[in-house]
């Protein structure tokens, strides 16, 4: 088998354990938004709405990592609830490795307590790999979220066994908590053109 060089093993090699760090070092939400032909997808806008509700419950800041679309899409994200839009150096067309690197690096530098992703095929391709790289927990396919504001935990309700059972999941052990929504969860928030926010160009 090939030599591995995952973040987890590098950290183990240097004796770094995420659990030693306090959860307080992670604050705020990061919503991952995807572009389709240069426009932010509806699924991502709906996830932004879900994220805004969580951020309000936590009294936290919400940043959007925008992949596959340009700076022209930032005002629409800010007017719908983003406090900041992060623009990484990544190709506009989906490419697993490059988008993974952009997501992992954004999490490492912005240190959100929650990473929220829409229920898309790119999320299903990317989220487990990103969570594993960061050695943190992932709730996949959540159809509903609940904020436990005191513990700063997100509880995700996930249909299991083909919808024959519902499970309530949380990721209490590590930060950030990765949450991937099920398809068609959330609504596109209405625009507030007076909302302000920043646009941040992330280094490569």
């Amino acid at each position: 088998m090939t030599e591995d060089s995952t973040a987890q093993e590098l950290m183990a090699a240097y004796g770094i354990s995420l659990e030693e760090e306090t959860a307080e070092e992670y604050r705020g939400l990061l919503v991952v938004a995807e572009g389709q032909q240069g426009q932010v997808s509806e699924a991502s806008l709906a996830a932004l709405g879900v994220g805004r509700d969580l951020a309000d419950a936590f009294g936290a800041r919400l940043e959007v990592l925008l992949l596959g679309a340009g700076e022209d899409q930032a005002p629409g994200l800010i007017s719908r609830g983003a406090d900041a839009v992060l623009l990484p150096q990544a190709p506009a067309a989906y490419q697993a490795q490059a988008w993974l690197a952009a997501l992992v690096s954004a999490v490492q530098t912005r240190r959100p307590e929650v990473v929220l992703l829409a229920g898309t095929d790119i999320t299903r391709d990317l989220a487990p790999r990103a969570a594993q790289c960061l050695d943190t927990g992932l709730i996949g396919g959540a159809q509903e979220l609940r904020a436990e504001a005191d513990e700063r935990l997100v509880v995700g309700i996930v249909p299991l066994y083909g919808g024959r059972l519902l499970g309530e999941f949380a990721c209490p052990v590590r930060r950030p908590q990765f949450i991937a929504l099920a398809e068609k969860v959330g609504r596109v928030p209405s625009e507030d053109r007076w909302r302000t926010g920043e646009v941040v160009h992330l280094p490569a």
Partner: protein
Amino acid sequence: MEIVVCIKQVPDTAAEIIPTPDGTAIRTEGIPWVMNPYDEYALEEALRIKERLGGTVTALCLGPESAASTLRTGAAMGADNLVHLTDPAFEGSDPHAAAQALAAALRGMKCDLIWCGKLAVDDCSGYVGTALAELLGLPHISAVIKVELEAGKVVAHRETEAGTAVVSCPLPAVLTAEKGLNEPRYPKALDIMKAKRKDLQTVTAADLGLSPDRVGAAGALTRVTKFERPPERGGGRVIEAPTAEAVEQLVAALRQEAKVL
């Protein structure tokens, strides 16, 4: 071509799933167990590749002792080697903990191609396949509906919202199987008999050099706080009012209750 297929034993998709009274687990008595359907697609494809190009197919399964029957099903379909990761230390694994154990086993195996199902129909997490790729430092292609092998690389088709994407990556690689990839074979009665006598290698956490706090419940990063049955679907509702008023009420209900407008 050396191929390893990760297979999982899951409750039959028609089985009734009932939570235990305390809501922290599911009742397992009387449940018929089967190979996860997406893993069947993965195994079938691995067998077809072997039939074309030669090599071996190894079925790798993490699960309790009773999961050996699913490995036997794999052997009846045509898997050459059976490896069963089974140890009380693995109990209570979440997808993250399961991936650590499977990755440790895969590191010790020679493989050009690793197949998984795109998700298991029990927890529906879809975590393990691509997480394995990350743990092993390999490229992955997920939710594959068609695959071709060329010298040292794999070309796969995957269904996306925008249409079919054709993706290629070098070998070794991890692929996850989507419905539609193939029609899995039914094992012949004689092969089912032969599979019962096939060697089955059992592997423990200690054999893999895994510390007990990285696997099973201790290594899990997600917690289940509750299982419950979904609410019964209510019947329809008839809005009785003069047309103009009924329309108003319907629009209000679609907006506020159904939230589809």
